């Protein structure tokens, strides 16, 4: 029997057209699933970028008060926060600081400037003098803003928005002095504000008023549609709330942890030890070192 050529079988060119194979349904679905995740991720990242750009020029009025933001600003801010992760929030603060603004997006004031160019700075606190990093000192306009900004950050979802099971999740709560204005039925506020239609109504205020008016119209239309009398408070509301409470059940079966990570790093190991410089980026201590740890500095 003639020896079989070793060449014939090895001529399967990687460059040639792929061999026709029946499509494996399961593989197809997996591929689609991953493609969708990548697509979702792109959309979310673009959205976060757009939101950061909006929030760089926030708040809308230059004499806004971070302790009492306007309802329109507060609502928009909370909506724009939806796709954010804490790291996106840090990025926003970084961008605002570059524009010389206080890191808290509802504050129009410039950020604090250290008195000297020294890397470490003396500051007087309630508990006496302290030495603080110049960088940390210059993030906010005041300790108060730092507190309010952190109050938002701790509420942000750690999971990237494209991996969240139930959409983007809930809006964040703000630390404000005028909480009532943000939670009470909003049209009432318009009447209060509409009374002194005098001196310095800025364009923004007018826009806000127009927005409220539009909202009222929409509510009125809705009330008509539901057969209510205009002007009366809606009674139909409670019928719209579903009383049946459903437990949220996980959709996917838990996946056993795989060894992939260790395997992919194996080639970097020197006698079993993987040197620090070769470890993947998502290592815990690396992350801590890179992040600006401004929360640690908060006044207690």
């Amino acid at each position: 029997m003639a020896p079989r050529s070793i060449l014939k079988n090895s001529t399967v060119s990687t460059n040639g057209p792929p061999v026709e194979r029946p499509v494996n349904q399961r593989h197809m679905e997996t591929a689609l699933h991953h493609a969708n995740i990548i697509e979702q991720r792109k959309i979310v990242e673009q959205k976060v970028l757009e939101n950061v750009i909006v929030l760089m020029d926030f708040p809308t009025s230059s004499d806004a008060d971070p302790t009492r933001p306007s309802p329109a600003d507060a609502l928009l801010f909370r909506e724009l926060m939806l796709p954010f992760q804490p790291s996106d929030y840090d990025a926003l603060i970084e961008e605002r600081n570059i524009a010389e603004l206080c890191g808290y997006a509802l504050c129009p004031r410039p950020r604090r400037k250290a008195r000297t160019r020294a890397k470490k700075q003396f500051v007087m606190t309630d508990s006496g003098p302290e030495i603080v990093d110049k960088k940390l000192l210059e993030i906010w306009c005041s300790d108060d803003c730092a507190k309010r900004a952190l109050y938002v950050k701790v509420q942000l979802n750690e999971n990237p928005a494209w991996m969240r099971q139930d959409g983007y999740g809930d809006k964040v709560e703000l630390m404000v002095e005028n909480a009532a204005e943000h939670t009470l039925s909003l049209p009432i506020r318009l009447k209060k504000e509409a009374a002194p239609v005098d001196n310095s109504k800025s364009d923004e205020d007018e826009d806000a008023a127009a927005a409220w008016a539009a909202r009222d119209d929409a509510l009125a239309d809705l009330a008509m549609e539901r057969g209510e009398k205009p002007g009366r408070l809606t009674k139909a509301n409670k019928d719209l709330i579903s009383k049946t409470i459903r437990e949220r059940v996980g959709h996917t079966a838990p996946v056993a942890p795989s060894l992939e990570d260790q395997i992919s790093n194996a080639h970097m190991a020197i006698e079993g030890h993987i040197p620090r410089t070769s470890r993947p980026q998502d290592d815990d201590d690396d992350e801590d070192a890179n992040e600006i740890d401004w929360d640690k500095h908060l006044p207690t």
Partner: protein
Amino acid sequence: MEDRGGHSPSMIRMWRVYRTAKEMCLDRGYDVSREDCDISLAEFAHKCQREDGDPERTRLHFSCQPSPAMLQKYAQLPTAKDPDPQPAIGTMWVEFNGDENVGLKQLRDYITHLGSGSFYSGIMICTKPMTGMGLKLLRSAPHIEEGPKGGVEVFVEQDLLVNITKHELVPKHVLLSQEEKKQLLQRYRLKETQLPRIQVTDPVAKYLGLRRGQVVKIIRKSETAGRYASYRWAI
């Protein structure tokens, strides 16, 4: 060896960066004079030195026009829709940004400036890497309506301290025109996807300003074969 007397380290550093930037434009095919690339340290300092001895970066910005050869290289293949297409290249604006931190703010200002000066593309050279959000905007820049057609590139001064393409181990990279690329693929009966790849983020690809879809010819010296060429498709 040049006389370095009296010049601050930051001035010498900036001088190197500036020369590499000029060489980069020349190597890409823009009309840049050889003298500009070889500017002496004394002359450079005269051009941009501040009272404190440091360079004033705003005095270093320059624009450059594509040479006739470059226009040819960037000529587009005519299509039924566009039988006489314009070359995909134009005036470039090169800016040196001295800000300590560069983020969305500066990038947006820069893009607006490029649009108002009707530049085709731009290069911003910063002292430090740009913020993460800035890089994200940069990646999506080709899709920004008001942005320049040819996009925006960002370099860190550190990247241009030495001209990497002058290193003896870096083979010569030559960009193919659309026509040359078509002929190459026809001759070898290839699809472009079958070519080996080069990432547009590769240092040499960045130096040459390669765009996705372009093909470069890489010419290496070989002890046994004299010279040999390979081709890579930019992704």
